[in-house]
């Protein structure tokens, strides 16, 4: 195994592009190192991006949006008052990952690129309309977060491409993320749901609803958003929201939950997350 510490994403991309065997990028390492120890992967090239200038930065852009570097940890996001105020759902989703110790290492980019449908921060990012900045052999591009995972452990990134940062739009309403786990922490989502919405007075003017752990990838559920838009979150649209969320589910039966359970709880969480996001948007 070769260990690399490039000082730019262009160099990181070039190393990955030239590599012939198994390549892994290392930021917090909370997935890669565990996989290494569990014998799930033995990379030929391990590319540590933490030495690249700017990877630990949380920056507000000129249009009021946010740019979060690839090595920003969950704990650093929690400590950032501005980001928390703008996107509480995204920050709280990231905060749910692992333990206090893991929080000092884990990153949203890593969470995304691990490709797990149960990743906690990804549904929140998708609901928020986040994009990823991707550096590759052909230059830099941007892609919607929901377009990056293509299946469990699989991404739409081309060989040599690496995510350098995540971009959140200017906060314009309220967002929330909820997950169901059998315990109260230190667990993996059986179902996750992100909701982001904006209000004009009491009426919801725009919304995005996402689901995690109920399909091979995190889902952006258009029908669920449609149920919300134009409503004041009355009983009928909430019921439509739950039905749309449940209808979108395509889960598996496994040790963490049954199809029936996941499908039902997706609707429950969608309603609960929508209520939180609604209150936040009105605040």
């Amino acid at each position, binding site marked *: 195994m070769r260990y690399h510490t490039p000082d730019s994403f262009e160099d990181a991309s070039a190393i990955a592009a030239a590599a012939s065997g198994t390549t892994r990028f290392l930021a917090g390492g909370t997935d890669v190192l565990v996989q290494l120890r569990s014998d799930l992967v033995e990379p030929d090239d391990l590319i540590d991006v933490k030495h690249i200038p700017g990877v630990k930065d949380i920056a507000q852009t000129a249009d009021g949006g946010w740019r979060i570097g690839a090595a920003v940890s969950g704990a650093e996001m929690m400590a950032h008052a501005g980001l928390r105020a703008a996107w509480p759902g995204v920050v709280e989703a990231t905060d749910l990952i692992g333990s206090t110790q893991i929080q000092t290492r884990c990153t949203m980019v890593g969470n995304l690129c691990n490709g797990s449908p149960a990743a906690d921060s990804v549904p929140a990012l998708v609901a928020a309309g986040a994009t990823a900045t991707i550096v590759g052999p052909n230059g830099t591009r941007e892609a919607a977060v929901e377009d990056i995972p293509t299946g469990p452990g699989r991404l739409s990134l081309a060989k040599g491409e690496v995510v350098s940062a995540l971009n959140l739009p200017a906060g314009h309403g309220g967002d929330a993320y909820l997950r169901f786990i059998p315990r109260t922490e230190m667990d993996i989502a059986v179902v996750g749901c992100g909701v982001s919405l904006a209000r004009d007075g009491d009426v919801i003017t725009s919304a995005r609803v996402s689901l995690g752990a109920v399909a091979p990838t995190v889902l952006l559920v258009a029908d669920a958003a449609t149920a919300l838009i134009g409503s004041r979150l009355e009983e009928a649209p909430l019921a439509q929201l739950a039905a749309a969320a449940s209808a979108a589910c395509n889960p598996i039966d496994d040790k963490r939950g049954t199809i029936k359970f996941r499908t039902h*709880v997706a609707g429950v969480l969608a309603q609960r997350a929508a209520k939180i996001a609604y209150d936040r948007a009105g605040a």
Partner: protein
Amino acid sequence: MAFDEKTEGFNVVGTRPDRPDGIDKVTGRASYGADASKAGMLHGAILRSPHAHAVIKSINLDKALALKGVKGVVTRADFAEGLTGENWNVLENVMAGEKALYDGHAVAAVAATSQLIARDALKLIEVDYEPIPHVTDVDKAMQPDAPVIREGQASKAVPAGMHPNVVDYHESGHGDVEAGFAEADLVMERTFTTEATHQGYIEPHACLATLGGDGRGELWCCTQGHWNVQKICAALVGIEQSALRVTASEIGGGFGGKTAVFIEPVALALSRKTNRPVKIAMPRADVFKATGPTASTSMDVKIGLKKDGTMTAAWGEFRSQGGAFPGSPFSFTAMCAFAPYALENVKQIGYDVMTNRPKQAAYRAPGSPMAAFAVESLLDEMCNQMGLDPLEVRLKNASKQGTKASFGPTWDRIGLVECLEAAKEHSHYAAPVPEGAGRGISCGFWFNHGGETSVTLAMSEDGTAQLMLGTPDIGGSRASMAMMAAEELGIPYEHVRATVADTATLGYNEVSHGSRVTYASGLATIEAARDTVKKLCARAAAKWGIDEDAVVWRDGCAVPSGPNAGDFDPLPIGQICRKMGATGGPIVGHYEATPEGAGVSFAVHIVDATVDRETGATSVDRYTVIQDAGKAIHPDYVEGQYQGGAAQGIGWALNEEYIYGEDGRLQNAGFLDYRIPVASDLPMIDTVIVEVPNPGHPYGVRGVGETSICPPLAAIANAVSNAAGVRMKDLPMRPSRILDALDG
């Protein structure tokens, strides 16, 4: 040794000093199983079967042995032959013979110059398996068409015509159960199941072994009983017991799971093969797959109850699987089931069943928590149906001194009634059940144990004491023993250093199990201290020129027994010890015995829980443990045992389980999907120490470590069932199971 009939006036006993091992543990100085190293040491790794049941047709080691850094490989051929009984079972478990019997069963082991090389070498071992049908469920394993794990294992007690997987049978009771049911106003029968759970100790098994061609060896390991390790390992590698010196490391949790051996004989065999020290530390996945979880059970229970709350009869059949070997705690399950109740008519039957799972090991009151879950759940349902107070019904039927126990003996002095009275008076039980919550209570029982015990107490010249114990400290026992020695010697607690001695420096000690340590090692410590005091008094008598019987010990000094004995100033322990070399030599007290007066222990738990009816999630909101300790030597550690048992019970009741796939493979061999409770899952667990003295201990001590896990499964299930409005009869009560129950 009988109770001293003294319940107060102690100087040290009953106080809460710091534990002697505390600083070492919080600073990282304590040496656990994996913390030992030796020059020239190799690292061992074990290859495990990926199949639930398979014939091992051949094992090819050539490629592994050719890897640079690999120094040796062992298979079954490298262990003793001709073993019988439990020694054969243990060997078969630590290294497979003709068949792999479960997912994770060891088939070969490598010693190499690094852990990474050892792991790589495992991938080069070629095993030709022929998978054969498997069974992991206890009820299915008893069916006529079930795959046979191994023929000819059944004891003579097993009734004719049963499947060969049924290897043992228990039946006990008294009276006429059918006549008793005929007297009842309500008779109800229910079936309950529990899944296997793991002790979940934080420290994986680890050891460092040296065994030379001369047949002499040294072993450092984390264990609850190093003489037991010595005995079994010597047999498995074919050497004499005394040729193997075993030292118990500091232990990061055991809960019964470290009373067995798994990797130690393998490390010894690798050391002998390579002529180098060999260290093995188990990965967590191996701990789940290949150590000893507890049994899973399937149970039918039937109770008859009168309108006034009198239990007229009780009957139960308890089926228990303990993996691919005999030895599940089926008889304990049967015997504990109705132990809390004075019953004229009672019968319990138990079956020990083999399956393609790892060989079970003890887990805190083995077998009892499941029995309590079945019996106490049924009792709760019947009380609900008849409009009876569940605590009053338990009080009305409670076992007391003189009651003929459900499994035979007549109870001596026991404390169940006192626990139930304490529960009734507790603010928790008096408080109304919170809106939306459910309340559950349960009794629990455990036998407790004595066992072979040996203690030495050696005085130092400065009057401080060195206490050598043979029972590894799994619950603060060094503190408790030092307190009892200090109490007897009349010196400060800090003046006693308690150490767990190795097998070469003390007489045989049975494993730290059966909640026996504070009782048996405590009793032996008191006796060794009294032996020491006698010798100290003899030195004073010699100095004063009076009869030994005319000297008594008071507050750390020898004093004349009365005015007639003579007029001498008190002679402090330090002065006697300073001159011991010149007055007769070292002063050392001993005690060796197999004490048999371990008093049984009962507990009552009260739980409030709520259920999220939309997701099936459960929250344990309030928890109270009431238990008879006989006499609490160090109340902090008694309370810690009470809380620990409740915490493990909460995990077992709600989310912990061994999950097997259709392929017979374990699906959740890690702490992510094997869900022990995290701190935020638990409420503050309130405790009440009841002290009804054990007649068989000088201070009245009863073991407390195990009884605390007997009531939680039932108390939580009763609380959850009452909160949800549906009876939960299968554990764990995972959210999907609760939602399904709510759906009807």
